[in-house]
């Protein structure tokens, strides 16, 4: 193993460790987040970090098929985030119209 490959291996390991610590930190925010919107943002960040983790793991194992997994995961994560955000907004709208109905009465 020459010098450059060793450097790349160490860099990949550092990146994987950084991404794992990042996922743990975002997961703490997912647990303690005071508002549901905080949890949605944390879930969005976790899914984007997992996409990055899959790409870094594809470099680590020299396996190209993890790239397809990363693309499919990014697509599904976007759909999930959009669905959760729409749900949160509809919940707020229902509560808001209930409050204004109470004010009118």
């Amino acid at each position, binding site marked *: 193993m020459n010098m450059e490959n060793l450097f790349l291996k160490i860099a990949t390991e550092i990146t994987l460790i950084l991404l794992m610590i990042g996922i743990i930190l975002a997961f703490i925010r997912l647990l303690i987040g005071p508002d549901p919107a905080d949890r949605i943002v944390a879930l969005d960040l976790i899914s984007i*970090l997992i996409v990055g983790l899959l790409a870094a793991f594809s470099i680590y194992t020299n396996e190209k098929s993890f790239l397809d997994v990363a693309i499919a995961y990014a697509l599904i994560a976007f759909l999930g985030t959009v669905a959760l955000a729409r749900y949160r907004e509809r919940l707020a709208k229902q509560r808001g119209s209930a409050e204004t109905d109470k004010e009118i009465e």
Partner: protein
Amino acid sequence: MNEILTAVLLIAGGLFSFIASLGMLRLPDTIIRMHAATKAGALGAGLIFIALAFHHFELATTLRALAAVTFILLTAPVAAHLIGRAAYCSKVTLWEKTWIDELANTCDWRTGEFETEKNSTSETQPTKGDDR
């Protein structure tokens, strides 16, 4: 040479992702936390994908990696816009040092629409964040 470039891009992407999650944990309110999460997170994942494109340097894999970067850059602002709109419309508590809130009292609960033109003259004054 290709390995060095890959390693530098990888470490940059990992650092950006780490900074994004650190800001996610440390910053004071939802809207400010979204600032860290969406921008730095998308940049970090994009840098890692560019590193992947340089690592497997062949046409099919590089094109797919660049398509993934394009996809992340297209979807991250859309998701951030939806989350931010939902968070603001659900009256999330702002940071106590927020001193200007240009969208105050503009979110109509019935329709979910923002009315910025109708009362734009009264909204130019700096208002406290809790007056919504």
